[in-house]
Each structure stands twice: as structure tokens, then as C-alpha cells.
């Protein structure tokens, strides 16, 4: 039996999505920019998907720009905002230490080009220090980038709280909503943001496709110049099959959210969490219990090297992860847990379990069966090894 509990890394494409991608490749092969019937048909597929994606986040379809995924969307938002506003003197970028690397490394790159970057920490609850964040937003601020849901611990950030202040100072507000879209209801209007990044494969869509929502009226210097696709915002022939798949995934996500289909996932997540805390000593859940996406739990195992536990679980057929993986696929200490001010050990002994819509009660029961055994074995070996060392 193979059990997949790493949906925050990626989710398998839903069967309807697979069909939509295959159908688009087969039937809508035209270039959406072409004048002829083939082009028009592809354009229609694009527009349908655009409408579906917009509906998922309460947006106007004209505000959606398709990209290659969350990372490109974040880059577009951050670089585009900085390049647009910096010449007028707004050189500050405010972000948080718990952002995804797509944001952190982009901001770092801009710091080398003269951006005044302020990185605000989070509390142990996994929520950004809102006072520090508010204090950092000045009239010279070009952009505030605050994720909507954290990828490692699942905590939802108070994005809407800072919207008014951003507007007042003329700063654009960007949210990396990659881990939120499809897991919780997301409304761009209610959030009050200007820019929002999303990625299809995190909610059962295809990989290599995502979108950035750009509030109507927001100017953003294009980061991919070329043809006039996507209202002149992103050049390059559109990835029609993947976009069609993203459209279908968006429709399915919207149906699941409005139909309460994700409640079962939350119940299983809570069962897993409670089971671990109850049966395994020295475990603690990272991040606030409330205000999380319903599929994620991040647990520290005292006295355990997360890397070893992850491999031991994989050999039992259970796929989980820690937050960060580096270039070779090995683990490095989680920057998120560090930014939350957790002790160094936590950054090395924590595992992330992220469930999906198809996770079953039997799978969670299996995990709760093997996990205590593996943990106690690894702890015993760890203690023996420590005792034997000179």
C-alpha cells in the first residue's frame, strides 16, 4: 500500500483534469492568437478556463493572467511592482520570514538591485507579527508580500488586515495564495489585495501552469515580453492544455468548497494529529491549531532526525515531507520554523503531513499504526548512538 500525504508538495491531477488536458491537446490545438477557426477554438478554451479560475477566487476573468505556475506569478508580482514603483521613489518591499522561497529569493535578488527589504518574523503560532508588519509599511513602500496560507505549517495569515494601510501608503499588496486556493474559500475582493499568485497543481490541476490575479487598474511592468498574449502582460503562446486543466481543477475546487467536501479532510487531519499527540510522547504540533488550512499538520518529534523518519515512513509506503528540500532532495532546516522562533532542534525534527481530497480513513489508521513503532525505534537507536559516542 502506498499512501500519499504530501499534497502541499503537489496533488495528483483529478481524472476530469486529465481528460480536459487530453481533450485540449487533441481538439484545441490551434494557437489562440490565430485568426482562423482553429485559433478561435483554442481561444474559446482559454476563455472558458479563465472564467473558471476567476470564479474560484471571486475575480473578473479579465484580471487573470496565466503563467507557468506559482513561482512565475510571485516573480511577476514582486519584480513587476518594484520596477513599476521604484522609479518614483518607492523602493521598500515588506515581506515575512515564513514566505515560500519563490518570494524570499526574488526579494533577495531585488535587494541586490537597491530594494529596501524588510523581512518581518512570525510568532510561534505561525502567524506573522502583524504589529511589526504594520510598522514596516511606509509611504516609500512599493510592495507588501504576505502569503495567504503557509506551506509548511498551514497557518492562514491576516492579509485582509493590512489592505487598508497598504492602499493609504500607495503600496501594492501581493499575496502568495498557492497553498490557500482550493483549500479554503478565497475572495480577492474580501482580501483587499492587488495581486494574488496561484498554482494549479496544488489543487489537482496540472503542473507547470498557474495564474496571477492583477486587480483591474494596477500597472505592473511585464516580466515576459514578447507577443501580445494575456492582454500584453505575458508574452508567449499560451499552454492551452494545461490552462484547460487548470480551469477544470478550479471548477472542481469551487464545487468541493461550496459543497463542504473538504470537511472530511479536516476530520481526518484532526484525527491524525490527535492520534499522534496521544500515542507518541514528545510530539508537538507547530503553528496555531485554529486558523489553518484543513489539510496540513506539522509535527515535531522530540529526539528524532526528521530525515530518518521520513525515509523510514517511505519504506513503509507512506509519503510525507518536511517543509524544505534542497537541490539534491535532502533536507535542510526549515526556514519557516526558524522564522517562527522555534528552537533549532524543531527545524530538524519536524514532519509535514498534508492530506488531500482522496485521503481515506484507512490510510490515516495505517499511519497511526506504523508511526509510533518507527518513532520509538529511531529514538532508541539515537539514544544508543549518543551513548556510544566518546
Amino acid at each position, binding site marked *: 500500500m502506498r499512501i500519499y500525504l504530501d499534497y502541499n508538495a503537489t496533488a495528483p491531477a483529478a481524472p476530469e483534469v486529465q481528460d480536459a488536458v487530453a481533450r485540449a491537446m487533441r481538439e484545441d490545438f490551434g494557437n489562440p492568437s490565430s485568426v482562423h477557426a482553429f485559433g478561435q477554438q483554442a481561444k474559446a478554451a482559454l476563455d472558458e478556463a479563465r472564467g473558471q479560475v476567476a470564479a474560484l477566487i471571486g475575480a473578473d476573468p479579465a484580471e487573470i493572467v496565466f503563467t507557468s505556475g506559482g513561482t512565475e506569478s510571485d516573480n511577476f508580482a514582486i519584480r513587476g511592482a518594484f520596477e513599476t514603483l521604484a522609479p518614483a521613489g518607492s523602493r521598500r518591499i515588506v515581506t515575512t520570514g515564513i514566505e515560500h522561497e519563490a518570494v524570499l529569493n526574488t526579494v533577495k535578488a531585488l535587494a541586490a538591485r537597491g530594494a529596501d527589504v524588510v523581512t518581518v518574523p512570525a510568532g510561534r503560532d505561525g502567524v506573522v507579527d502583524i504589529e511589526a508588519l504594520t510598522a514596516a509599511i511606509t509611504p516609500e513602500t512599493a510592495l507588501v508580500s504576505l502569503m495567504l496560507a503557509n506551506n509548511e505549517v498551514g497557518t492562514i495569515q491576516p492579509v485582509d488586515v493590512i489592505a487598508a494601510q497598504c492602499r493609504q501608503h500607495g503600496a501594492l499588496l501581493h499575496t502568495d495564495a498557492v497553498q490557500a486556493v482550493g483549500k479554503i474559500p478565497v475572495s480577492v475582493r474580501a482580501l483587499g489585495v492587488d495581486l494574488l499568485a496561484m498554482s494549479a497543481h496544488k489543487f489537482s490541476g496540472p503542473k507547470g501552469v498557474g495564474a496571477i490575479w492583477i486587480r483591474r487598474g494596477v500597472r505592473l511592468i511585464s516580466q515576459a515580453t514578447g507577443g501580445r498574449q494575456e492582454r500584453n502582460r505575458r508574452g508567449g503562446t499560451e499552454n492551452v492544455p494545461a490552462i484547460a486543466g487548470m480551469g477544470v481543477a478550479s471548477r472542481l475546487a469551487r464545487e468541493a468548497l461550496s459543497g463542504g467536501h473538504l470537511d472530511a479532510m479536516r476530520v481526518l487531519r484532526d484525527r491524525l494529529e490527535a492520534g499522534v499527540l496521544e500515542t507518541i510522547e514528545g510530539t508537538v504540533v507547530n503553528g496555531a491549531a485554529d486558523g489553518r488550512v484543513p489539510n496540513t499538520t506539522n509535527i515535531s518529534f522530540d529526539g528524532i532526525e526528521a530525515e530518518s523518519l521520513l*525515509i523510514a515512513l517511505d519504506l513503509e509506503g507512506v509519503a510525507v515531507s518536511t517543509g524544505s528540500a*534542497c537541490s*539534491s532532495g*535532502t533536507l535542510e532546516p526549515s526556514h519557516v520554523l526558524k522564522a517562527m522562533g522555534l528552537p533549532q532542534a524543531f527545524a530538524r525534527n519536524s514532519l509535514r503531513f498534508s492530506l488531500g481530497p482522496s485521503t481515506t480513513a484507512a490510510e490515516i489508521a495505517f499511519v497511526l499504526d506504523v508511526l509510533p513503532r518507527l518513532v520509538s*525505534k529511531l529514538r532508541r537507536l539515537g539514544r544508543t*548512538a549518543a551513548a556510544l559516542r566518546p
Partner: protein
Amino acid sequence: MRVVVAMSGGVDSSVAAGLLAEAGHDVVGLSMQLYDQRASPEAFGSCCSLDDLQDARRVALALGFPHYILNFEREFRATVVDRFVSEYASGRTPIPCVQCNSDLKFQTLAERAEGFGAAAVATGHYARVVFDEDGRRYRLLRGVDADKDQSYFLFSLTQDQLAHALFPVGHLSKADVRAHATRLGLGVAGKPDSHEICFIPDGDTAGFVERQLPVADRSGDIVDSSGRVVGQHRGVHRLTIGQRKGLGLSTGTPMYVLKLDPAESRVTVGPRDELGRRDLTASQVNWIAGAPPPGPRPLTARIRHRHHDAPATVTPDGGTNACVEFASPQMAITPGQAVVFYDGEECVGGGWID
């Protein structure tokens, strides 16, 4: 039986894994990431580089067993690199492979392996391990391929470590190993052998030591055996016992490094015949049988990897040291290198040359 194979991405460990998988074992490949692969141009590493780790991954995929890359950066720095640098700085010529084997592969990795339910740890070393029914103990033997034999690097293994060690290519020649790699369809079949010191691929050991341990001025005098200054050097870490080239001396006869004195930053040189020595003291001696022999023992001893072991009498001092007396003078006995003892085909132990 579940067996963990330490895979470097090279042909030897790949074939080791392949042979075990073929024999029906439940193989789990583990590779150690030893350095930060994304580091600056300063980045070091040739063995276990990102490409090598991917080679190991491809072998595992081709043979159909799971493979994981473990982050051993902290452990590698602490147990291997730091010690390597400080040894050089103190005028010794270390061999980091021994610590890497004993502390990383057969200690840390073995601990992890047990956690994964593995009964043994296999590597691609050219060495053999056999169980001696009479003596009720494990014996470490040279690899069958005399030219590739790597038992020298394994002298510090204990009975417990040998009990869980497998060397699947130890009974093969290098040519056989490459033939097996080809037969198994492994892409690494033609891959060249790795360098002696994996984390210094450009071979510039002195530059590496200087980057790791910056000191403003390491220069000093070169003297002959009588104490007469005959030249200047740019740091004892740039030299090793027996070295002739790069001294910048214009004496009539070729001069060799005889002694390195880091405290005085002084290098003693002399003609080749002064390079030979009959005896040495080995420290931190490991006797693979578990205990030292009761008295002086006639063995052969090897003073560096590329040295034909020479007849010697080894006398344990009752503690962890041993006195080694060769039958004939040996050239360039070098502090920091290992001296490894053999009884015929069997590697019986070894220690560090002081």
C-alpha cells in the same frame, strides 16, 4: 534481507548495489550529500557531487530499488573536513577517507540503516569480510584485486561494524566490476575513478587549507639537518614528508622534506638517504580482532595507501599505541597517515603515524 548500500554514484558502489539486488536482497540505496551543492565558486567536491548523487539515483531507478540522499553536511564538516584542515596546519598529512569510512559510512550511516530495518550496510570497497568459525570473529581481508585493494582505509572498523558490513565487489577485479556494470546496463560503467581526496577536486590542497583556515603569514625557513638555513617556504601545510619538488632550493644534490615543524614554521630537508626510517609509533591503534596481541608480532605494515606493505615487528605498548619496527628502512614515513598491519591476506588493524 534488507541491505543499505552506501552509494557514491561511482561504478564500484553501483555494482555493489546491483549485485545485491540481483541476489534478491531488499536493497535501499543511501547517498551522503557532504557539502552544500549550491555554495559559491568556493564549493568543493567531486565525489558525491550533485551529479554523482544523480548518477546513484539513476542506478537505483534502473535496478528498481529505493534510493535516498541524506544530508551529512554537518557530520562531514565536523568529522572529516575540520580535522583534515587542522592536521595539515599542524604539519601532518592526513587521509580523510578513514574517518569518512569509520565515522560516517560505518557509524552514522549504519545507525540510520538500522532505523530503516536493514541488517547490513554494504559499500563498494575492494575488501572482504569473512567470519572465522574457529575464532568466533570477523576478519577483514584485502580485496582480491591487489591493485585496487582498499582495506587500508578500513583498518579502524570494529567487530560490531564488520558484523554488519558487506563488500560485494571485494572478490572482483576492477575489470570485472566494469563488466558487471555494463552487463547490468548501468550508465556509470565507464565512469572514471574518483580522486583521492574527494572534496578537493582540483588537487590544490594548500589552497583549500588556506581558504578554510586563513593565516596572514605562514612562511618560514628551510634548514638542512645541521640547522643551516638553505631556503624559504610559504607554509608547512604546502609540504609533505618526502616531497622534493616545489622547494625552490638550488643545492647540488636533490633535497627532500624530512620534517615539518609548524610551531617554529620550520622545514628540515636532506638528501634521499636521510629519508629512510626503520621505526615509528602508531597511536589510536585499532586491533580488528578486538584486543591487541599479547606481545611483539611479526606482520607486514603499510605506511600509505600506495605502499607495498613491508615486514615489520609490531609491539603493542599495553595502551592504545604500538611500536612498529621495519626489517628495512622505509622511505617517507609521514605523520598523519595511517600505518596498517597485515598478516598475509588479513588486515589485522592499524593506527595513526605520529
